[in-house]
């Protein structure tokens, strides 16, 4: 393994993100090739966390753009500060300046509200980390617009002109695959698929994120999660659920699992009623040991 990759792995673990070679290799390549990193994977496997850790690791700012259906350029790129413009128009009502002059005035930089994308390319200081979160929720039009920004790293505002990037931000895009992203966008990015963690990785995550958890409980939780993910549930629990569960068990001062405790805390890991019913039936049938022993 290249030292640089090992170093990134150490840095990420130092920032409390338990990683594996696939993640650290992808981050290494994204940093050196200067390409955006597209991270896909099931819900709750730590996709967003990569961008946060990257920002912490590089000691730079994290700029986040949360996507949703209907997201448009006014929210993502820039918007004019209308109240401020109105006020200025009102104040200058009696001035004799021409409309063109007034217009140039209120459509200038001080009246511009920088939204995340514009912020990311005009940020002073170090290149920030730009996180475009859950891109699959935005619509196709926004995706093509984003593609344009990511390839040119410049933005044209009709009233001002073209603003070029002062530097290229480190871009991380995440998607839950609720919709397939376009091939054009995929080609622009490096691709990282994050799978559910292995047993060992999950134990390490638990020990890092839940300080003071004992070896036995961490092992039992991780084992139970592995069994649950094999059960073909309607909503398969991710690492986020593992950590919620561990936190709940810690609050109950549990130092090991038993069937009753699992039943009480089922809501932390299962989010669909049929899944809950199924596991309750399994527990009632005395299959608790299968769950924690795999």
């Amino acid at each position, binding site marked *: 393994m290249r030292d640089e990759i090992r170093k990134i792995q150490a840095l990420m673990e130092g920032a409390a993100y338990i990683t594996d070679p696939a993640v650290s290799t992808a981050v290494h390549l994204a940093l050196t090739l200067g390409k955006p990193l597209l991270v896909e994977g099931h819900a709750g496997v730590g996709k967003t966390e990569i961008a946060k850790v990257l920002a912490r690791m590089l000691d730079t700012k994290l700029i986040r753009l949360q996507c949703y259906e209907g997201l448009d350029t006014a929210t993502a790129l820039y918007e004019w500060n209308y109240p401020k413009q109105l006020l200025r128009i009102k104040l200058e009502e009696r001035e004799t300046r021409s*409309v063109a002059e007034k217009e140039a005035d209120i459509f200038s930089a001080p009246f511009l509200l920088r939204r995340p994308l514009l912020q990311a390319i005009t940020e002073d200081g170090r290149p920030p980390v730009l996180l475009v979160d859950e891109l699959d929720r935005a619509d196709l039009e926004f995706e093509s617009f984003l593609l344009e920004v990511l390839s040119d790293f410049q933005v044209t505002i009709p009233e001002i002109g073209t603003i070029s990037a002062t530097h290229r931000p480190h871009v991380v895009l995440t998607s*839950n695959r609720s919709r397939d992203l376009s091939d054009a966008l995929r080609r622009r990015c490096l691709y990282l698929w994050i799978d559910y963690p292995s047993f060992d990785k999950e134990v390490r995550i638990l020990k890092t994120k839940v300080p003071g958890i004992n070896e036995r409980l961490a092992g039992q939780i991780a084992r139970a999660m592995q069994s649950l993910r094999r059960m073909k549930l309607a909503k398969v629990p991710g690492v986020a659920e593992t950590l919620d569960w561990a936190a709940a068990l810690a609050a109950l001062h549990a130092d090991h699992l038993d069937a009753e405790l699992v039943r009480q805390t089922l809501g932390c890991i299962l989010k669909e009623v049929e899944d809950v019913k199924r596991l309750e039936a399994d527990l009632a049938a005395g299959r608790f040991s299968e769950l924690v022993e795999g």
Partner: protein
Amino acid sequence: MTTAARPLPRDLVTATVRFCRLLRARGLAVTPVESRDALRTLELVDLGDRSEVHRALRTVLATRPEEFPAFDAAFEAFWGGRTAPVPTGGPAEGPAPLVEAHFPRARDGALDFAEWTDFGEGEGEPVGLPGLSDIEATLGKDFSGFGGGELEEVARLAAQLARRLATRRSRRLRPTRRRGRVDLRRTMRLSLTRGEPVELARRERKILKTKLVVLCDVSGSMDLYSRLLVQFLYALQNQLGRMETFVFSTRLCRITEELKGQPWTAALARLGDVREWSGGTKIGESLRAFLADWRRLLDRDTVVIVLSDGWDTGDPAILGEAMSRIRRRAGKVIWLNPLLGSPDYQPLTQGMTAALPHVDAFLPAHNLESLRALAGHLKP
């Protein structure tokens, strides 16, 4: 975070370019840009660490987990040597089986599409013959009696349907003169020339096209109808931007790409490589495979159409469960059954009984008239 680049040996450069060409031949979208990135990548990793080279190249050259199996196979085949499995696989390692996104090459005995008018018998499945006594006009004519030349009529119908689909509103806004939300930006512009912001510019939600997902049964019992229905799907696929088409008998195959953007005969030739035609039927398993790998296609803007006679040789419980999951995620679920055209058909097969509670509309699909009637149901 810079890495001292070491120049790559010449033969490694040549080999990498050839590897990229191999990936392209296997269906991965590898362009010269990716080839260049691959070369740069090799300068950045430990060439003595095979799994690291594998991981790094896959990060650069694959764009979705569905491509991982093809990439891994090509990597094995090309760079040869040990078969150390890479520990970080795609969803193939997860619980669900992966549907092959690309078609397997035809095995022996692939169906000859030129003979598609010679109706053969399916594997012991009943062949329905409803509506044969229908009026002989093209519209009312049962597909089972169709010859060759009706493609034009089918295409025209598909175009009509596609237009009907383009009538929904998006959450994005566009300028309007009518009532709508106030558009501050345009209002401000107007007020510059007219003084006060009294004239409000407005925006309204723009029209959104419905997305379609079609799952077409092409098993033996559907033979009589498959040809016309696939022709219809072909025409529709080329009219609609957002449509995904799958066929299934015992397994599921995506045929969107096969249908798109080429003449019907060429599409037919490519479909010939699919080995799903005229086999037995496992509707439940096929729908479950769809959910495992293509669930992301389903949302509230999507209409799902299942085209099948409901003859299922699999477990009806699986079918019922899969249908209920599809129904929960999709905007609307329509089941088209060619047998429904027959006056004395009753949906009593186990499969049909299991599926019906999870269907928003249960409609016939035995002639062009019935497909035309479909338009009214295509809004989520």
